[in-house]
C-alpha cells in the first residue's frame, strides 16, 4: 500500500477524490494518528462553520462606476479577430493553390482559377503578338530597302563620277598624244622640207657652180 502524507490524504479527502485503497489508508491513519484525526475533525468543523456562514448583503455601491471607469475595449481584443484571421488565411491559401485571379478588362470583371487563359484571351494574345511581330518586320524591311536604295544611289553616283573623270582624262591624254603626234609630224615635215630645200638648194646651186667653174676655166 503506498504511503501518503497527511496533507495529501486530507486534501484528497476534502476534494472527495479518495479511491477505495486511499479511503482505507485514510481511515487507518485516523485510527493510528491522533494528530491527523484532530486535523480531520478541525476540517470537518471548519467546513460546517463555512456551510453555516451567513453571507452578508452587499451594501449599496456605485456599480456603474466599474463600467464607466473602464476603457473601451481595443479593437485588437475583438474576440472574432482570431477567427477572422484564420478564415482569411484559409481564403489566401485557397487563392494560392487554385491560382485564383480577378481581372478587370474594359469594364468586365473576370474571375478565373488555375492560372490559365481562356481561348479568347489566348487568341487575342497571339493576335497581338503576331501584329506586333508583323509591324516590326515591316519596319525592318522598310529600313533595309531604304538603306539599299541609298547604297545604290551612292554607287551610281560614284560610278558616273568615275566614268566622267576617267573619260575626260583619256580624252585629254588622247588630245595630248594627237598634238604630240601632229607636232612630231610637223617636225618631221619641217625636217623633210628643210632637207628638200637643202637638196633643192644644192641642186640649184651645184650646176651653176659647176658651169661657172667650167666658164672660168
Amino acid at each position, binding site marked *: 500500500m503506498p504511503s501518503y502524507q497527511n496533507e495529501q490524504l*486530507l486534501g484528497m479527502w476534502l476534494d472527495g*477524490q479518495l479511491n477505495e485503497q486511499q479511503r482505507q489508508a485514510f481511515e487507518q491513519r485516523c485510527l493510528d494518528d491522533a494528530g491527523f484525526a484532530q486535523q480531520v*475533525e478541525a476540517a470537518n468543523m471548519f467546513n460546517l462553520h463555512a456551510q453555516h456562514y451567513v453571507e*452578508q448583503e452587499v451594501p449599496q455601491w456605485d456599480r456603474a462606476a*466599474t463600467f464607466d471607469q*473602464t476603457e473601451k475595449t481595443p479593437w485588437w481584443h*475583438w474576440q472574432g479577430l482570431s477567427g477572422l484571421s484564420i478564415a482569411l488565411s484559409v481564403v489566401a491559401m485557397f487563392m494560392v493553390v487554385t491560382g485564383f485571379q480577378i481581372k478587370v478588362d474594359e469594364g468586365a470583371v473576370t474571375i478565373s482559377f488555375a492560372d490559365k487563359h481562356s481561348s479568347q484571351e489566348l487568341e487575342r494574345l497571339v493576335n497581338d503578338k503576331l501584329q506586333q511581330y508583323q509591324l516590326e518586320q515591316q519596319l525592318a524591311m522598310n529600313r533595309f530597302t531604304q538603306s539599299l536604295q541609298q547604297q545604290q544611289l551612292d554607287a551610281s553616283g560614284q560610278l558616273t563620277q568615275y566614268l566622267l573623270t576617267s573619260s575626260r582624262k583619256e580624252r585629254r591624254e588622247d588630245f595630248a598624244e594627237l598634238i604630240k603626234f601632229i607636232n612630231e609630224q610637223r617636225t618631221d615635215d619641217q625636217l623633210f622640207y628643210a632637207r628638200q630645200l637643202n637638196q633643192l638648194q644644192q641642186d640649184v646651186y651645184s650646176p651653176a657652180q659647176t658651169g661657172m667653174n667650167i666658164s672660168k676655166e
Partner: protein
Amino acid sequence: MFEKSDEQLIAKALQGNKQAWINLLKRYEKPIYNYGVRMTGKHEDALDLMQEVFISVYRNLATFRQEGSFKSWLFRIAHYRCIEFYRRKRPMDGLDDIPEIECEQAPSEQHIDSAIENRLLIQAMQQLPLAQKSVIELKFFGQFTFDEIAELTGMSANTAKSRMYGALEKLKTLMEVDYA
C-alpha cells in the same frame, strides 16, 4: 424566468451593454464581497477590494477565453487583487507572515454584524498568514478543489494542501479558544 448565461452577459458587456455588465456584476458581487470580508476582516476594505476586482475584471474581460468557468477566472483576479491590497496595506509583510492583529481595528460587532459565528470565524481567519487564508477561503467557502486552487493562485496543489493543513492546525487552536 430565462436567465442569461455568464458568456452571453460577457459578450453583451463587451459590446458596451451596461445593463448586461451590471447583471453580471450583481450575480457575483455577493460572493466577492464576502470573500473580501473574510480576507480583510473589514467591511470598508471588502467594499474597496470588490470595486477593484470588478474594475480589473471589466478591463480584462476581453481576454477571458472561456476555457474555464467565469467564476474561477473571477476568483483568480480576486486573489491577485487581494495580494496587491495586502501589499499596499502592509508592504513589509510576506505572504506567509502572521499578521499583527490590531485590537482596536479587529472585527467587532460594529464592523461585522450578522451572526456571532461569522464574527468568530472571520476573527480566526484574520490571524492566519495571507497564503494560508487564501487556501482556506477558496477551499471551504469557494468550494474549489486543490487543483483549481493551484491554478487560481499559481502555487502547486501539494503546496496548497500543506498550507491548508498548517492553517487547520492554527484554526483548530484559535477556534477552540474562541468557542471556549
